[in-house]
């Protein structure tokens, strides 16, 4: 049971380049999320998706693009990477309703923009 996988796990890129971070879940959860983790800020929501072809902005969406053509995949693209986007990126999916509502997180992608 793989759960949520992210690739790559580590990425170094240069300012101005396009970068795509991949997220894949094996559970068929409807909701998926992208967060970035920065020291002193905890995790901040970038984008989320309620279902295939339905996405919405979170707290810090600028400079990012998402798509969701299939339920199991939720890629995050940095169209023109900037140094301020150096961070650890976590993908998550959500299961259940009511008291069983829980988000599960992937292992993260550490991105460095030079």
């Amino acid at each position, binding site marked *: 049971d793989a759960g949520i996988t992210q690739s790559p796990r580590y990425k170094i890129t240069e300012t101005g380049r396009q970068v795509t971070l991949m997220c894949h879940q094996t559970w068929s959860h409807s909701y998926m*999320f992208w967060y970035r983790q920065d020291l002193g800020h905890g995790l901040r929501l970038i984008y989320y998706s309620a279902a295939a072809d339905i996405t*919405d902005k979170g707290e810090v969406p600028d400079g990012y693009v998402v798509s969701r053509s299939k339920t199991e995949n939720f890629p995050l693209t940095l169209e023109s990477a900037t140094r301020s986007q150096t961070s650890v990126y976590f993908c998550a999916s959500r299961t259940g309703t009511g008291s069983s509502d829980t*988000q599960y997180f992937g292992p*993260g992608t550490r991105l460095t923009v030079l």
Partner: protein
Amino acid sequence: AQSVSQHNHHVILSEAASLELGCNYSYGGTVNLFWYVQYPGQHLQLLLKYFSGDPLVKGIKGFEAEFIQSKFSFNLRKPSVQWSDTAEYFCAVIISGSARQLTFGSGTQLTVLP
């Protein structure tokens, strides 16, 4: 917008000491509350959650948390910490009826000395 505050940024304890990590949120309506743990180099894992009912919630690994609505707090406790509890701890909240994305606190780094 709702926010979550974790006032302890770094806590250092000796093994067998008792632990209490503070978490306060700023929303007057119905909320669902979570504590996640992130061990070094790993992804976030759910420790416990509160949706309704008994305000004292027991989670995994001997952790518990108490929801005090009048204080807008959801503090995490453990009576006796172990070296293996060294990790970063995040409090998070979902506002009931929203799109149900998590809002995280900035995290508390716990270091347990052997």
